[in-house]
């Protein structure tokens, strides 16, 4: 996590800077947690909305990106809860669509591994992405998720095991 940046809680300019500095990483995490890229983008915006509402009360005693990730994972969990209700409508909406081109978002949705990650429990998937995409340590992930470091280690182990089973490796 980038801890060189300093942010003043409640500062509008600092929040805008925080958004610019962290949006891509938050989006990257969310893409592996929710069903598609547009939903991930929507969840990313929701994450920053929630963060903005609490920006004045944020205390810089913890890494700001860990705080954002925690919000993002909660948004993803909330989205997954509503996903089943929306699924029927989504199937109907997608019927008759032309074959999509090589859009990076489509590539992401077609990746077997990313699809397998999406099927994991949200907190396991989040730990996996924070560890293997963002390169966070288990301690940093524990701070982001608000759980003991040992819990992170067990979630990572369970996630890897399930991925191996799904992918047949």
């Amino acid at each position, binding site marked *: 996590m980038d801890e060189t940046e300093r942010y003043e809680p409640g500062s509008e300019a600092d929040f805008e800077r925080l958004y610019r500095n962290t949006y891509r990483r938050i989006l990257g995490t969310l893409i592996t947690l929710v069903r598609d890229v547009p939903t991930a983008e929507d969840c990313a915006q929701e994450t920053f909305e929630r963060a903005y509402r609490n920006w004045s009360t944020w205390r810089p005693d913890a890494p700001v990106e860990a705080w954002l990730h925690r919000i993002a994972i909660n948004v993803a969990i909330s989205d997954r809860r509503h996903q089943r209700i929306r699924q029927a409508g989504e199937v109907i909406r997608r019927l008759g669509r032309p074959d999509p081109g090589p859009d990076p978002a489509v590539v992401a949705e077609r990746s077997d591994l990313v699809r397998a990650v999406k099927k994991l429990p949200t907190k396991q998937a989040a730990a*996996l992405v924070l560890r*293997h995409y963002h390169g966070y340590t288990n301690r940093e992930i524990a701070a982001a998720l608000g759980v003991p470091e040992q819990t992170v280690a067990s979630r990572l182990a369970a996630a890897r095991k399930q991925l191996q089973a799904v992918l047949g490796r």
Partner: protein
Amino acid sequence: MSDIERELEEELHRVLDPIAARPIPRRRALSGHRSLKTVLGGAGAALTIKVLTGVAVAAAAVTVAGAATTGSLNPVVWGQQVTQQVSSCKSKLAAGDHGIGDCVSQFASQHGAAVASAARHHGNGNGSGNPTDNGGSNGTGNGNANGHGKDQRRGQPTAAPTVDPEATDPVQGHPPVRVSPGP
């Protein structure tokens, strides 16, 4: 690092890096967007539909109740009224009298005048319901205002409309013509 971990890292970077390289969109302003979506989607949608259906049913009930109170041009209601009128006319018949035609016809002519007035009010009556009317019965549609007007053409007295008390042109585009006898 195990094979699965290495593969995971490579695949995540291959897939996510191009998306992360996209321009950062403008931050969404605080709004009720998400809340609205929640209301309009999923279980909220069902609730919304129920509420809207309830409002529609309530509005329809009010309309029907109002029509029943004030009189109605609805053919079903009209049929019921005719049935009642026939019964009433029969009961008024004196011993030895035959035929209730005039009695029923008088009632029917009132309805004809009312319907013609209402049709003119909407601009689609053809005015044949009351040949002596000088109002704005200049519509071009196929109004049904002539349904019961033949009785008036036979010289029966014209009863005042019961549904539309005002037989004048509502937009006053056609002022009443006064016909006075010549010198």
